[in-house]
């Protein structure tokens, strides 16, 4: 499978819609301290189903909604959409001459009221449906695909039992 794009609307410091097309290979994200780079990482975690506000550096999940700045009012909702291409019968990205890939857009929304919405291709669904799709793709928020300095140092600093996931994920 391949990730085509991620859209952030009202998510953390991205007050207005920001659409990041994603390509094959290596994409670098650069910029000064505090400009929003790790917030993009949080957006990936969130749309992939992260349930812990603490992992997203908040006390409550509501804190992912744009809270306003000196010049902009707070938003009422945060939304992140992830557009992926699923290639059938293959776990590589090769554009084989079998079927066309399926395009899937996963969307997560949170309103200030506390209400959550999950959508697949703009149609409402349950969190479980999103998780089922993600399980097939290997894009699981718990896996070691999203690595910050904390997680990297956790590998060497952790207790031996906490490292079991390394062999369990491969098995």
């Amino acid at each position, binding site marked *: *499978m*391949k*990730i085509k794009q991620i859209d952030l609307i009202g998510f*953390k*410091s*991205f*007050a*207005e819609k*920001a659409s*990041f097309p*994603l*390509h*094959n*290979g*290596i*994409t*670098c*994200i*650069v*910029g*000064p301290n*505090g*400009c*929003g*780079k*790790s*917030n*993009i*990482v949080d957006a*990936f975690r969130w749309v992939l189903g992260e349930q812990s506000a603490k992992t997203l550096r908040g006390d409550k999940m509501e804190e992912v909604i744009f809270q*306003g*700045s000196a*010049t*902009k009012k707070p938003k009422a909702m945060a939304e992140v959409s992830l557009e992926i291409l699923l290639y059938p019968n293959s776990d*590589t*990205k090769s554009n084989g001459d079998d079927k066309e890939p399926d395009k899937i857009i996963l969307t997560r929304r949170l309103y200030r009221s506390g209400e959550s919405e999950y959508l697949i291709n703009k149609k409402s669904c349950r969190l479980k449906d999103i998780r089922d799709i993600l399980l097939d*793709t*290997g*894009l699981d928020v718990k896996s*070691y*695909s*999203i*690595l*910050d*300095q904390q997680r*990297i*140092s956790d*590998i*060497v*600093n952790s207790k*031996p*039992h906490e*490292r*079991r996931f*390394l*062999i*369990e*994920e*491969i*098995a």
Partner: protein
Amino acid sequence: TKRRLREAYNLLKEKFDEVFKTLFGGGKADLILQDEDNILESGIDIFAQPPGKKNQNLNQLSGGEKALTSLALLFAGFLIKPSPLCILDEADAPLDETNIERFSTMIKNLSKNTQFIIITHNRLTMQIADYIYGVTMEEPGVSKYLALQFSDVENTVN
């Protein structure tokens, strides 16, 4: 499933040593089951010895050596079972220039089968990018981004 875990363990053990040697330019590394007979529940110990150094407590390694050891183990997992996506948020911060080059070379190879998103402040790391997004906050507190060429990076980074 005991057999699958055993296979996974043996594969990872071997790959870890291989990747460690690539990233450190030598030395050796191993994964050790605390309880050999109980692979379903056993904890996993890490043994890591950079080239020319004597075997010691993992904790005595330097900040950069620990980070590189972790990355070796994680990349070993990637080589065995590629993930479609890997996001690295300032993983290069503790590394010196030589290690950043080895780290970058390895990522370049892994990126054939995995989409990488790398957040960095380091210009050496930026050199392996196929695409660069610069994030800024011209309006304080509000993030925006632009697609950049490597030569544009100077303005965004400052």
